[in-house]
């Protein structure tokens, strides 16, 4: 897609037909608003997405985030904003190239072009005030950029966004986002009343005056679009008869899941991109009987949660990669002493502080293996925003049932992506049971392991006769420090056996597509939508490709070897590092594969290949498609022929 001349614009694709009122009917559209940070692009885009969801469209929004809080204005690397994908059907990922972009300056657009965000024919609605900038340098940059964008085949429309807003406010920098929202509403035939209602919600805290001002800007943008951009009109028919929906991002879904699971304590330390879960809880968690503890550090956060859980209260800690590294000692204590605990990890780019705001699935192996000694824990990953909600409830139950830590993986893609999903109806059984304070049954030991399953019931402080001292040292069934070598062997066996017990309750994963073929693609986490879309396109092209998506990573879902045997090749698609197979010095033996591939190979002894990168971006369906086509058509394309 990218050429040596700097061109990074793909050829257009997509279905369309003529619609009523001159609007072109399309099954989907991808819209971006890009700006310097702090110009309200995300607020406009989120609102646009919400209005579209309320009109019955499938929606996926993803924030475009620069790594710095306040990057220099008008810089390529400073591109901030949002992408909104709207469709007649359910949307599961951010898609490929955008159909339309609103840009508040030309430099940020360069940044997005470099990231292959657009194709030939993408409409660019560009703020034109720079053409009249008092700074000659800026004028020159702008003029050259417009020429370059047109050369690349973009459909550039220059327009006086700020000038139009000047009628309403002295500093249009702060208001043009709502003008743009109005423009988008007119282009895509959005219900203006729904937009006005949404503005009231968004600006509720700012008061009636601000709401009115923004509604005026919305109307002005709408009128401008109707009169000046009517040739761009697109109709995206809504889905029919969908069940009641909610719309939110993954971190909001985690927060609501925490509340719906009856969690009692959430202890955390701020870390991007996990922190906003706590923002959503901060004002509301107490209403569901929970408390949010902002600890002094990551270690104290998990320690506080472990303490609460030991005392019979359901507890959870939330972090990202660097925080997970700090928490591993407590995680191994929770394994050793069999303390139920939910740890939510919203992954970001690594290693070290890495890419704080970017997408990566780099914590899988740390989650599964990272702690001292042998540390069997349950590791699961949400693949959708809806799963972010429901998996917290599952994780809490598993933690208590199996008396062990459960790690729930999400990532920056789910954290900031916004999508509608069927509205959950909270159930009493989702809540934790009240903690037991009845007298402890005589003769039952603190770790009275069932030898077959490794499972046992724990005494809770306050239970008469249950007094025991929990210890991280190797211990006996009575929780006494073990001095016999066999005692440690036995304890490790019992704790490990719980994972086998749990795995025996899991179902074989569902295959998307034919149960046999040339290639099986395996994914986990937030890549589900992009992989499914790529695989659907491959299947439509007659390729014998199927996919499956894992939710449980430790223990792995059962039956994988049998499934793999029915395909000529098996590969994972992931967002984490792997050595390209054709790198110099890389051999079949020393090749460091993507994390799920390594895990599956070790568990199944199958020759599982992988394709992954660490660009920090969600995967585009087209990139997956192209990679797989390349491999299927190649006679010696690495390990997959």
């Amino acid at each position, binding site marked *: 897609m990218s050429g040596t001349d700097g061109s990074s614009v793909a050829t257009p694709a997509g279905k369309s037909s003529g619609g009523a009122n001159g609007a072109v009917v399309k099954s989907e559209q991808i819209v971006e608003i890009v700006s310097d940070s702090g110009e309200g692009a995300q607020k406009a885009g989120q609102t646009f997405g919400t209005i579209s969801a309320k009109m019955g469209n499938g929606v996926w929004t993803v924030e475009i985030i620069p790594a710095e809080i306040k990057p220099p204005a008008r810089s390529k690397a400073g591109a901030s904003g949002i992408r909104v994908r709207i469709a007649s059907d359910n949307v599961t990922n951010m898609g490929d190239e955008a159909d339309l972009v609103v840009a508040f300056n030309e430099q940020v657009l360069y940044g997005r072009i470099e990231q292959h965000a657009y194709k030939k024919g993408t409409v660019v609605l560009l703020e034109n005030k720079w053409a009249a900038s008092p700074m000659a340098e800026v004028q020159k940059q702008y003029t050259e950029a417009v020429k370059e964008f047109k050369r690349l085949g973009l459909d550039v429309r220059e327009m006086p966004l700020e000038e139009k807003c000047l009628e309403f406010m002295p500093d249009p920098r702060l208001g043009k986002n709502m003008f743009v929202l109005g423009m988008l509403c007119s282009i895509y035939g959005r219900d203006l009343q729904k937009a006005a209602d949404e503005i009231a919600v968004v600006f509720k805290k700012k008061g009636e005056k601000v709401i009115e001002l923004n509604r005026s800007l919305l109307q002005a943008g709408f009128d401008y679009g109707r009169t000046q951009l009517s040739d761009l009109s697109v109709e995206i028919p809504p889905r029919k008869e969908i069940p009641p929906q909610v719309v939110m991002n993954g971190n909001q879904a985690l927060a609501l899941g925490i509340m719906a699971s009856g969690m009692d304590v959430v202890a955390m330390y701020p870390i991007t991109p996990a922190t906003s879960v706590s923002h959503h809880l901060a004002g509301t968690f107490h209403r569901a009987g929970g408390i949010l503890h902002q600890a002094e550090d990551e270690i104290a956060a998990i320690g506080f949660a472990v303490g609460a859980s030991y005392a019979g209260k359901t507890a959870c800690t939330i972090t990202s990669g660097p925080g997970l590294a700090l928490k591993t000692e407590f995680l191994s204590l929770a394994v050793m002493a069999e303390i139920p605990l939910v740890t939510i990890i919203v992954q970001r780019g690594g290693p070290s502080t890495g890419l704080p705001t970017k997408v990566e699935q780099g914590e899988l192996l740390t989650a599964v293996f990272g702690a001292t000694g042998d540390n069997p824990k349950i590791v699961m990953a949400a693949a959708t925003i809806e799963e972010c909600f429901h998996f917290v409830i599952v994780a809490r139950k598993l933690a208590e049932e199996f008396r062990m830590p459960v790690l729930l993986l999400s990532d920056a893609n789910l954290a900031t992506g916004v999508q509608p999903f069927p509205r959950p109806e909270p*159930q009493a059984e989702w809540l934790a049971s009240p903690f037991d304070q009845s007298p402890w049954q005589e003769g039952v030991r603190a770790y009275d392991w069932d030898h077959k399953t490794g499972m046992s019931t724990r005494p809770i402080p306050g239970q008469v006769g249950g007094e025991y001292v929990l210890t991280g040292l190797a211990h006996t069934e009575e929780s006494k420090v073990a001095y016999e070598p066999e005692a440690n062997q036995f304890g490790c066996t019992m704790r490990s056996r719980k994972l086998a017990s749990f795995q025996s309750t899991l179902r074989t994963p569902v295959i998307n597509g034919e149960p046999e073929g040339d290639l099986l693609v395996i994914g986990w986490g937030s890549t589900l939508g992009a992989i499914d879309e790529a695989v659907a396109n491959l299947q439509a092209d007659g390729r014998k490709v199927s996919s499956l998506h894992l939710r449980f990573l430790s223990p792995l879902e059962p039956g994988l070897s049998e499934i793999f045997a029915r395909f000529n090749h098996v590969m994972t698609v992931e967002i984490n590092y792997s050595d390209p197979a054709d790198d110099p010095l890389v051999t079949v033996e020393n090749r460091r594969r993507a994390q799920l591939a390594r895990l599956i190979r070790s568990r199944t002894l199958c020759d599982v290949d992988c394709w992954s990168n660490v660009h920090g971006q969600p995967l585009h369906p087209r990139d997956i498609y192209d990679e797989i086509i390349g491999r299927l058509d190649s006679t010696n394309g690495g390990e997959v022929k």
Partner: protein
Amino acid sequence: MIKKEADWIQELPPNQYTIEDYDGGEARWCPGCGDFAVLSAVKRICRDNQIPPEKMVAVSGIGCSSRFPHYMNTYGFHGLHGRALPVACGIKARRPDLDIWVATGDGDCCSIGAGHWIHAIRYNMNITVMLFDNNVYGLTKNQSSPTSPQGLVTSTHPSGTWLPPLNPTLATLGFTNVSFVAQTVDWNPPHLYATLNAAYQHKGLSFVRIMQRCPTFTPNLFDPIINDPTRLILLTHENGIEVEPAVEKKFKNKVVHDPSDMTGARDLSTLEGKLAIGLLFHDPNTVIYDEFTNHGLDMDAGDKLKAVREEIARFAI
């Protein structure tokens, strides 16, 4: 056999706990270790306050003194190096009915867990913290501790430690929201008992630094003070820690110190060649974190479900 009890036998209340009710496993400290004195003082306090064993949790980190929970017949949590305090706070946060005692050493509290120490003082939760300060790492065999006196010969500083010791009492007095700071010594059991009992009664985090000798590595640590009783100063005050008159009489050097006087407390914590024991600082009007974390304990499933439904409705389309 006489089945009927004589009518002159006084019936004990059903929950009359004795010292033995708090006896846990046999303590494996070195003979002569000050930890034994603390253990027996705590058991006496438990009995005297009739703390139900199932309602007490002894929390510790790692080290000799952190073996403490194993020797109590209550609930216990023997966790990680330096992390007793976050665990204790987490337990207390949602279980106001439990009495939390923390056993932590000078390495555990003032070195590997120092960050938690600062913040636990600031949270000021209703727990009793006993700092077993023997100025050395015992369990791992004679390494320097942050409170080792300058020049102490240890396994990690064979020519003597280079730095002046950290003063945990002075440091604690400097932490925001501090509410109770006392010092005592392992060789005066009545004072040890009185101090820990006063700490237990305090609402908020009570921090008691117990000066003790390690019989193996620092047996002569306090010889100058033990050999010259005038160097050991008993703090007295009507708002201070009350000791029996017979005990008080034995002190040759007494100072009246008002525990609300922070400046005086800081001066008394930094005496050269002398040691002040008793209540250095007490502020009963500090913010207590438990009051925030105890929110909503009585909420039932119906209330919770209602709140969750309302929250979900906010995202409805």
